[in-house]
């Protein structure tokens, strides 16, 4: 069913407005927090070149111009991706963020590939077996999973892997293998790239190294989805139309497939979208500090150590924009699936 263009238009407009708001908000943060914005923008430079660097930053930010011009400039620069060079990496800021972004996104997408089906299945199974021992086990499990600190679990997985298999899943891919097989990243998703190039050893290596952090991150979405699915199914079972379907003689299997599962798809998509963002933060922490992978987390830490405000702001804006885009898509997909929504 095609959802009305009107709704998509409205939803997109709102998202664009929100993204603009985020840019303005981060600019105000730069301006209003303690310290000279030009000094911050220049990355707290020291030594002989400091005065010059600060002057340059002042021109770059246009601090002599009125505030609305500054903000307009800033927005323009963001939208064109022209934010100057990163202090820490000496390459354009947007390039820095995007390179880290693909790495982190690969990890999260890989995680969600198995955690959504697993979480939904657990919730469904425990709802069907309501009141039994397996039900209370799954319920307890989902609470335990959602309460586990992912960086702690990640450390334990790392420890276990090293103790029992002697393999330390550190980094994204072994650099030796990359050199020996001549692997070159194209999209930045290593699993995809190695498959495209038919480079099986790199693929296996990347896979083996992505599984442990993915396991650590997966506990939250699995736990949340299992719990939410169970509740959604409970609610669906209480619907009048399920009661009617039973009275009409429709079989249990058909009711579960066509009546119950169909109705929980839109909310499950929405919950997955919400937890996706939560997992983003999780992934940033786990991948860098625990598993030594490059990604948004390592960029974040580098920008912290080098006081790289440009990257910090870019991270803030691009991550928020990403969140907003994901949620806009989720809303639109949800509206498309649900025949009731006609906005």
């Amino acid at each position, binding site marked *: 069913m095609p959802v009305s263009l009107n709704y998509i238009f409205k939803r997109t407009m709102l998202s664009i407005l929100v993204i603009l708001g985020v840019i303005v908000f981060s600019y105000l943060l730069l301006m209003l927090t303690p310290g000279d914005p030009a000094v911050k923008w220049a990355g707290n430079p020291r030594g002989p070149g400091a005065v010059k660097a600060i002057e340059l930053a002042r021109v770059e930010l246009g601090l002599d111009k009125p505030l609305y011009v500054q903000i307009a400039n800033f927005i323009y620069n963001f939208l064109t991706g022209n934010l100057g060079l990163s202090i820490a990496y000496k390459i354009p800021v947007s390039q820095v963020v995007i390179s880290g972004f693909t790495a982190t996104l690969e990890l999260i997408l890989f995680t969600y590939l198995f955690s959504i089906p697993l979480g939904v299945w657990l919730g469904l199974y425990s709802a069907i077996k309501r009141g039994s021992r397996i039900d209370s086990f799954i319920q307890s499990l989902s609470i335990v999973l959602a309460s586990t600190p992912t960086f702690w679990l990640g450390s334990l997985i790392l420890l276990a892997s090293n103790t029992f298999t002697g393999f330390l899943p550190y980094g994204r891919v072994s650099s030796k293998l990359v050199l020996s097989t001549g692997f070159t990243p194209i999209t930045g998703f290593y699993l995809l790239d190695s498959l495209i190039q038919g480079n099986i050893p790199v693929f296996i290596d990347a896979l083996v190294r992505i599984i442990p952090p993915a396991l650590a991150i997966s506990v939250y979405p699995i736990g949340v989805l299992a719990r939410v699915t169970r509740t959604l199914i409970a609610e669906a079972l209480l*619907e*009048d*139309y399920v*009661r*009617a*379907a*039973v*009275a*009409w*003689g*429709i*079989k249990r299997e*058909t009711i579960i497939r*066509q*009546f119950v599962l*169909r*109705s929980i798809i839109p909310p499950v998509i929405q919950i997955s979208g919400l937890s996706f963002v939560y997992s983003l933060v999780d992934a940033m922490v786990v991948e860098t500090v625990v598993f030594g992978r490059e990604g948004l987390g390592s960029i974040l830490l580098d920008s912290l150590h080098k006081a790289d405000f440009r990257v910090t702001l870019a991270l803030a804006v691009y991550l928020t924009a990403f969140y907003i885009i994901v949620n806009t898509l989720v809303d639109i997909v949800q509206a498309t699936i*649900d*025949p*009731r929504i006609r906005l």
Partner: protein
Amino acid sequence: MVLAIQAKNLKIGYMDEEEQITWATRGVDLSVEEGESFCIVGESGCGKSTLASAIAGVLPPHALTMGKLYIFNQLVINESERNYNGIRGKVVSLIPQNPGTSLNPFLTIGDHFYYILRDVKGLSKSDSIKIAQEYLSKVGLGKDVLEKYPHKLSGGMQQRVLIAIALASEVKIIVADEPTSSIDANLRAQILNLLSKLVKEFKVTLLLVTHDLASASKICDRIAVMYAGKVIETGLTSSIISKPRHPYTRMLLDSVPLLGSKKSLNPLPGEPPSLVEDFTWCSFRDRCPFRIEQCSVEPPLIPVEDEPHLVRCWRFREVS
């Protein structure tokens, strides 16, 4: 005559989270013959909807049962055991109360027919669509409805679809639970006429549950009046309407405002008793103007002379 539905001292209760039981029906005795239109009338909380759910096989899982219920001599409720195998959708079908929420919003009307006919009769998609068209035209709807989702239809159309669905699987009994309560007056008449016409045409036993004595009297052969979880009077429609033997039935008739005659309304004060406690006296005792000593013992259903009429009142002669 074959008995389509027979209830013997049927009790149904619901247990809430505090483990307190509310008895919705407190010992119902009822027989419905094959092919007749039978109506259960009562006010909210009298247990009529619970009884309908029990017959249609859709009692919620937290319901408790006692007594016996037969559908075409098959024992479906035997004390706490419930077994509706081969009954739901094959012998009994339901026209649910609320047309707006009783159709799956994610499926088209055609899908509804398909899943029902596939699961009940093992028909293919094209066959079931053919049958669906046939029954939809019986209720006055075109085949364009098949492609539509339920929310695209008006309340009256949804109700017609539900009637078509109930008829399509060719069951012997149709339970209609307040089919007109959420519909405007002028549509109500149409729906009721349609229902009674189709029931006659397909020779189906109809069990209509309603709070509206007037609509019941329009299309039913016999009426059972329920109060506080018990059947207090059953009889032919004409005899119930013109000569009510139970003071409650009489009060109900006196309370209905009639168009064009501004008769004064004479409701009895008070409300039905709480169904949490168990009591042995006549449930209507506290509101009854005919109350006597003997009413502290609940009377059984007493037959009235020369008529197929049963009443649960010691003083039914004085009442009429």
